[in-house]
C-alpha cells in the first residue's frame, strides 16, 4: 500500500487543523506546527521524487475504489517535483511570516497550510473533478491570504481576484461537465482512453470542452490576455503571501501541461492537439507583455508580478513546443523562476521597509539602511529572474533556445527570449540603481528598521536553493527530461491508473 502518496496532502491538511485546534491561542504552537508541516511536505516530496525519478508511476485508490470510479491519486515525477517545490516555498514563506506578518490575522498559518494541501492535492489527483475541488481549496486559501490583513490594497485587489476566479470556477465546471457529458468519465486517464474512441460527430464537443478547460487553466496560470489580474494581486499581497503565490500560477501551468498531454495529446483521436496550436503564440505574447509591464511598472512589487507573467510566458512557450526538450526546459525553468521570484518578493519587502514612506515605489527615496547586503541580494535575485549567469535561469533559457532550435517556431521563441531578456535587464538594473545607488543616505540611522538575521534567513535560504539547483542542474535537467518524455507518451500513466495501455 503506497500510503506515502497521500502524505503531501495529509501533512499540511492535518497541520492546518492542528494549527487551529492546538495552536488556537498560542502563536508559538502555530509556528512550530507550520515549520513542521513545511519540513514534512518537503520530506514527502523528496521521498516521492526518489521513488518516481526513474519514471515509475504510482497510483493510490482513495477509499479503496479503483479508478475511474473512485478518486485516484497519481504520483509521477511531475507531481513529485511540484510537491517538493511547494513544500520549499511554503516553508520559507512560513518562516518569513514569523517576523510580523503572521500576527496580522489569526489564521495565517491555517490558510497557508490549507493552500499547500490544495496545491498538493491538485498536482496529485488523477481526477478532473477532484482537480476542481483542490483548485477551489487553493483559491479560497489564497483569497484569504490576500485579504487577511484587512488592508485596503489587499481588499481592493481581493475583490478583483475573487470575482474573476469565481467566474473562472463557473467556467471550469462547464468544461468538466462538457467533458463528462461526452466521455462519460471524470478520471483523466480513463478520459484519455475514451477520447480516443470518440467518433467524428463528437469532435467539436470534446474539443470545445478541452479548450474551455484550457482557458480556465490559462486564467490560473495568467496567460495573455488573462494575465492582467496578476500584477496587482501579487503586488498587493504581504511578502510571505506573494512569495508563496509564486507557486500558484505554476499549478495552472501544471494543469495545462498534464491535461493537454494526457487527454489532449497528439494521439487523442478527434481530441488531438486541442491546445497545441495556440499555446506557443499566446505564451510568446505573454512573455513580451509581461516584460514590457515589468519595465513600465511604477512599483517594484508590481514589476515582480509582471516578471511572474513573463516567466509563465517563457515556460509555456517552451512547453508549447510539445517536444521532450521543450517541456523539459519549461519545467526546469519553472522551478527556477518560482524560487527566484519568491526570494525577490521577500527581499523587496525588506527593502521597501527600509525605504520608509516611499515603500516599493520606483522613485528616489532614502537608500535601504543595509544597502550593501540588500543590494547584493537584490543583485542575485535580479540575476536569477533576468536569466543571467551564473544562476539557473540562464541555463533554463539556454535550454529553451536549444529546444526550439530545430522546430518551426525557432524565430518566435528566439526573438521573444532574447529581446525580453534585454528588457528585463534594463528594468531591473534601473530599479536596482534607483534604489541602491541613487538613494539618499538615511538622515536618522535610528529610525530605520534593520532586517534581522531571522528575516534574512528565508531570503538566504531561497538563494541557497537557487544555487544548489544551479549546481545540481545535471540531475535536475535529467529529471525534467524524464518527466517530459513521460508526459509525451502517456501510455505509462494510463496503464498505471487504469491497468490497460491505450
Amino acid at each position, binding site marked *: 500500500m503506497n500510503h506515502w502518496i497521500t502524505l503531501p496532502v495529509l501533512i499540511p491538511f492535518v497541520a492546518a487543523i492542528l494549527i487551529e485546534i492546538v495552536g488556537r491561542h498560542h502563536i508559538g504552537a502555530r509556528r512550530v506546527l507550520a515549520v513542521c508541516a513545511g519540513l514534512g511536505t518537503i520530506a514527502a516530496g523528496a521521498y516521492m521524487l526518489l521513488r518516481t525519478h526513474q519514471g515509475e508511476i504510482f497510483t493510490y485508490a482513495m*477509499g479503496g475504489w479503483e479508478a475511474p470510479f473512485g478518486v485516484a491519486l497519481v504520483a509521477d515525477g511531475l507531481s513529485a517535483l511540484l510537491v517538493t517545490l511547494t513544500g520549499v516555498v511554503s516553508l520559507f514563506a512560513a518562516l518569513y511570516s514569523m517576523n510580523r506578518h503572521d500576527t496580522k490575522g489569526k489564521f495565517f498559518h491555517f490558510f497557508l497550510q490549507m493552500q499547500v494541501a490544495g496545491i498538493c492535492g491538485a498536482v496529485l489527483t488523477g481526477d478532473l473533478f477532484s482537480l476542481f475541488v483542490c483548485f477551489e481549496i487553493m483559491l479560497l486559501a489564497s483569497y484569504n491570504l490576500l485579504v487577511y490583513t484587512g488592508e485596503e490594497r489587499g481588499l481592493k485587489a481581493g475583490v478583483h481576484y475573487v470575482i474573476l476566479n469565481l467566474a473562472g470556477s463557473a467556467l471550469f465546471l462547464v468544461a468538466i461537465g462538457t467533458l463528462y457529458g461526452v466521455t462519460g468519465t471524470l478520471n483523466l486517464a480513463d478520459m484519455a482512453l475514451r477520447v480516443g474512441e470518440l467518433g467524428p460527430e463528437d469532435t467539436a464537443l470534446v474539443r470545445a470542452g478541452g479548450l*474551455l478547460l484550457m482557458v480556465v487553466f490559462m486564467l490560473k496560470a495568467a496567460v495573455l490576455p488573462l494575465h492582467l489580474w496578476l500584477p496587482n494581486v501579487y503586488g498587493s499581497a504581504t511578502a510571505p503571501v506573494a512569495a508563496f503565490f509564486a507557486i500558484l500560477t505554476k499549478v495552472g501551468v501544471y494543469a495545462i501541461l498534464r491535461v493537454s498531454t494526457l487527454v489532449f495529446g497528439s494521439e487523442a483521436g478527434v481530441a488531438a492537439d486541442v491546445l497545441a496550436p495556440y499555446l506557443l503564440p499566446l505564451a510568446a505574447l505573454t512573455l513580451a507583455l509581461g516584460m514590457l509591464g515589468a519595465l513600465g511598472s511604477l512599483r517594484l512589487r508590481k514589476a515582480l508580478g509582471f516578471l511572474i507573467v513573463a516567466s509563465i510566458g517563457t515556460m509555456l512557450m517552451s512547453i508549447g513546443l510539445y517536444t521532450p526538450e521543450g517541456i523539459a526546459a519549461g519545467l526546469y525553468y519553472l522551478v527556477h523562476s518560482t524560487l527566484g521570484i519568491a526570494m525577490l518578493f521577500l527581499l523587496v519587502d525588506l527593502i521597501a521597509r527600509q525605504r520608509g514612506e516611499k515603500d516599493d515605489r520606483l522613485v528616489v527615496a532614502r537608500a535601504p539602511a543595509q544597502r550593501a547586503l540588500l543590494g547584493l541580494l537584490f543583485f542575485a535575485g535580479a540575476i536569477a529572474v533576468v536569466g543571467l549567469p551564473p544562476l539557473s535561469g540562464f541555463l533554463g533559457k539556454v535550454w529553451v533556445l536549444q529546444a526550439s532550435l530545430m522546430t518551426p517556431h525557432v524565430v518566435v521563441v528566439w526573438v521573444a527570449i532574447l529581446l525580453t531578456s534585454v528588457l528585463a535587464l534594463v528594468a531591473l538594473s534601473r530599479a536596482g540603481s534607483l534604489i541602491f545607488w541613487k538613494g539618499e543616505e538615511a538622515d536618522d540611522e535610528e529610525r530605520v528598521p534593520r532586517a534581522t538575521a531571522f528575516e534574512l534567513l528565508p531570503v538566504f535560504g531561497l538563494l541557497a536553493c537557487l544555487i544548489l539547483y544551479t549546481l545540481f542542474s545535471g540531475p535536475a535537467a535529467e529529471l525534467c527530461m524524464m518527466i517530459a518524455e513521460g508526459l509525451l507518451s502517456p501510455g505509462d500513466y494510463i496503464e498505471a491508473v487504469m491497468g490497460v495501455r491505450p
Partner: protein
Amino acid sequence: MSVLLILMLPFVGILLPPLLQRQGRLAATLGAGIPTLLAFGLLMSLGPSVLAGEVLLASREWVPAMGLTAGLRVDGLGFLFATMTLGIGLLVITYAHFYMKKDDPLGRFYAYLLLFMGAMLGIVLSENVLLMALFWEITSLSSFLLIGYSSHDSEARRGARMALAITGLGGFCLFAGLVVLGQIAGSYELSVILASGDLITSHDWYVPMLVLVLLGAFTKSAQFPFHFWLPNAMKAPTPVSAYLHSATMVKAGVFLLARLHPALAGTSPWFFLVGGVGIATMFFAAYVAFYRHDLKGLLAYSTISHLGLITALFGFGTAGAAVVGVFHIMNHAAFKASLFMTAGIIDHQTGTRDIRILGGLRKAMPFTMVLALLGSAAMAGIPLFNGFISKELFLKETLDLPLMAGAPWVFPVVATAGALFSMAYSVRLVHGVFFKDPTEKTPKEARDPSMGMLVPVGILVAICVIVGIAAEQTAGPLLAAAAGSTVGGELPYYSLSLWHGFTLELLMSAIAIGGGVVLYLQRARLYEIADRWPQLTGQMAFEKVQGLILSFAEGLTARLENGSLQRYIVLLLGMALVAGALPFLEHGFVTGTAELTPTNPVAIAVWALLVVATLATVFTHRSRITAIICLSVVGLLISIIFVYLSAPDLALTQLSVEVVTILLLLLALFVLPKVAPPESSTLRKIRDATLAAIGGAGMGLISWAVMTRPQDSISDYYLENATYPVGGGTNVVNVILVDFRGFDTLGEVAVLVLAAFGVYTMLRYARHTHVEGVDDMASDRYPVVLVSVSRPLLALILLMALYIFLRGHYLPGGGFIGGLVASVALILQYLASGIDWAKERMGVSFRYVAVAGVLLATLSGGAAFLVEQPFLTMTLLGLKIPLVGEIDYVMTLLFDLGIFLAVVGGTMTILSQLSHMQEDREPFDEEARAKETDPWKP
C-alpha cells in the same frame, strides 16, 4: 586540477577583502592580492607545457542534457589571456591600493574586481562554449558593479546601466549564437567545434549564427556602432578602466574572434563583417579620440580604435593577420593599461583630467612624464616600441587582401588615416599634459605620486620597451603558442624584427607619424570645425531608443492593466467564447441521435416561470431587495426542477443553500447601498447583453448537444456497488459523496471552513454603526410571537436535522443538508431574539465546531490506515449496539457527522460574524500578545 584551482582562486578570494576590510586597507589589498598571486603562480607553472604547444584539458560533467560541461582548457591563447588577466590584475590591485581614497569601501571594490577576474579567467579558460558564455555575462555584471562603484554620481549610474544593457544584449546574442554553433557542430566543446570549421562555414545557419556571435564580440569590444558605452564607462575608478576597459574585458570580444577563428573565419561574410567593422571602428574611434578633451575619454576612444584594429586583423581571415592580431592584443594591453594608470595618476595628483586645463606638468611630475611619454610612443606606433611592430605588421596585412581585389586601396588608406589620427592624439596627450603652457591652475598642487602607483606603470612601460626592442626573444614564444591556437594549424612565416627594409608599410607608417604631428599642430582649426558639427552620437540614439521603449512600456501597461475588473471579466468571457466556439466553427455543430424526452404542460409552465423570474432578477437588479426576492424565486423553481429531474438530494441542498444565501445577501444589503446608481451607457449594455446572450446560448447549445447524445458513462458502477454488503447505502448520491468520492467531499468541507474563517477574519475589519430606527407602528425589536414560536421550533428543527442527517445514506439527506437545517434552526434564534441573546446560550465557538468537523471527517478517513486500507476506506467494521441492532456504516456515519459539524460550524460562523458586524470593537491586533508567547522573538 590546477586549472580548476586557478579559476576558483579569484572566486574564493571574493570573500576575503570584505572580511579583512576591518583590519585595514592593507589587509583588504592583501586579501585580493594573495589569491591573485597564487593563481598567477599556478598559471606560470603551466607555462612550459603550454608554450611547448600542449593543450591542457580538464572536464567535469555538469548538465549533460544541455550539452554543458564544466570543461576547462589551457592552450596558448588561453594562457596568454590568463597571464594578462592575472598579471595586469596584480598590478591593478597594487595600483588601486594607493589610488583609492581612504574612505572608499575598498573591500567591496576588490570583491567586485576579483569577481570580474574570475569571470574573465573563465572566459579564456573555458573548453565548453556555453560555459564561456556563462562567464561572459558575469564579466558584464561585474563591470556594471564596478562602473557604478561611485554610485552617488548620476553619470556613473547611467554609464553602468548603459554598459550593462549593451554588453548584456550582446551577451544574450552571443549565447544564442553559441547555441546554434553547438547545434551545428554537434557539441559545445571547443575541441569539437574548432575541428568542424568546414561543416560550420558551409551550414545554412552559418550567417545568422555568425551575426549573433559577432554581436556579442562587437558589443563587448566596443566596436562601431556599439562603441559608445565604453567612453561612458570611464566614470569607473581608474584602476577599473585600466583593467577592464583597456586590458581585459573589452578584449574578451577580440578573444572570442581569436578563439573561434579556426571554426568561423575565412569566409566572405566573416571578412566583410569583421574586417569591415574593425577597420571602420579603427579609423572612426581614432578620429574621435583626437577631439576628446578628457584624458580618459581620449584613452577610451583610443582603446576602441585599437580594438578595431585587432578586430580588423582577425577579420582578414588569414593566418598571418591572425598572428598579428594576437600580437597587438599583447602590446595594446601593456601600453594602454599603463596609460590609463598614468591618466589616473594625473587625475589623482592634479584633481582634473581635462587636457585643456592641464599643461606643463613635466616639471612637477617628471617620473610620470617619462612613463606617459614612453607609453604614448608605444600607442602611437613609434619605432623601438612594441606598438610599432604590430602596427606595421597590420598595415602590411591591409595591403594583401584577396577579397578586396576590386578596390585594393580601401583598407590601406583607411588604416593609414586611422594610424595618423592615432599619432595625433598620442602627441596631444603628451604635449597637452606635460609640455604646453597650462591655461589655468589645477585643483590640486601637482607632484609625482608615491612609488606604489608608479611601479605598476613602470613595469608595464618596461614591457612595452623591451618587447619593442627585442620582440622575438621576449614575446616570441608566448605569441607563437597563442597564435598557434588561434590559427589552429601550422603558423605562417612572420617576423617580429624592427626592420624589414623600405617597404610600403614603412611608408604608410611614416605618413601616419608625420601626418599625425601636422594634424596636431592644426588642432585649433580642427576643433573649431568639429564644434560646428551636429552632435549625433550612438549614446544619444541609445538613450532615445531606451526612452521610447520605456514610455511605450509604461503607456501600454497603464492602458492594458487599467485596474478595471470589468475589462478582465470581458476578456475572460471573450476567451471562453472563442475557445468554446472555435471547435464548432471548425467541425460543425452535431445534434445527437438519442430519442428526446416528451415534455408536458407543467414543465413548460415551470420553465416559463423560471425564465420570467430570471429575467426579472436582471431587470430589477438596481433595486436590490427586489432582485433578491426574484433570485429566491429562481432558487425555488430550480429546486422544483431538481425534484422533477429525479434529483431529490440536489433539491434539498439547493433549497437550504438558497435560503442561507438570501440571508447573506440581506445582511450584505444592510451595509451596501440599497439601490445601485445607473451607470452603464446604452452601448455598453448592448455590448454586455450581446456577450451574455452568446455565452448563455453557448452553454445551452452544449447542453443540448450532450443531452441529445446517447450516454456511456461510469455511473452504472455506482448503482451496482452502492449497496455493497458492508457499509453500503441505497441513496447512491450520498454513497458517492461519502464513500466513492469521499476525497472531494473532504475538500468541499475544507472549502466551507476556509470560507468561514475568511469571513471571520475579514469582518474584524469591517464595522458598521447601527442606527436604531424610530417607529411606532412596529416597535418591538423581538416580536413576541416570533420569539415564542422559535423556542419549540429550535428543538423540532434540530430533530428534523438529525432525521435528515441519519437517513442520508438510504434516502435523500445526509450530513450537508442536515447541517444546513440545523444551522437554520439556530439562525432562527438569531432572527427572533438577536445575536447577543443567542450567542450567550450557544456556549460553543462555531469556528471550533467547524474545525472539529473537518478533523472528525479526516480521522474517520484516516482510520483506514490502521487496518492497512487506503485513506477514506469506509467499509471497515460494523458496530453492534444492543437494542438498536447493527449499524453497519459506522465510518461513513462518522465521516458524514464530520461534514455535518463542519457545515453547522462554518455556516454559523459566517452568519453570526456577519450579524455581529455593526458592533464597534477594538481593531484586531494580535501582535502585542504574540510578542509574549512568541518563542522566536528574543
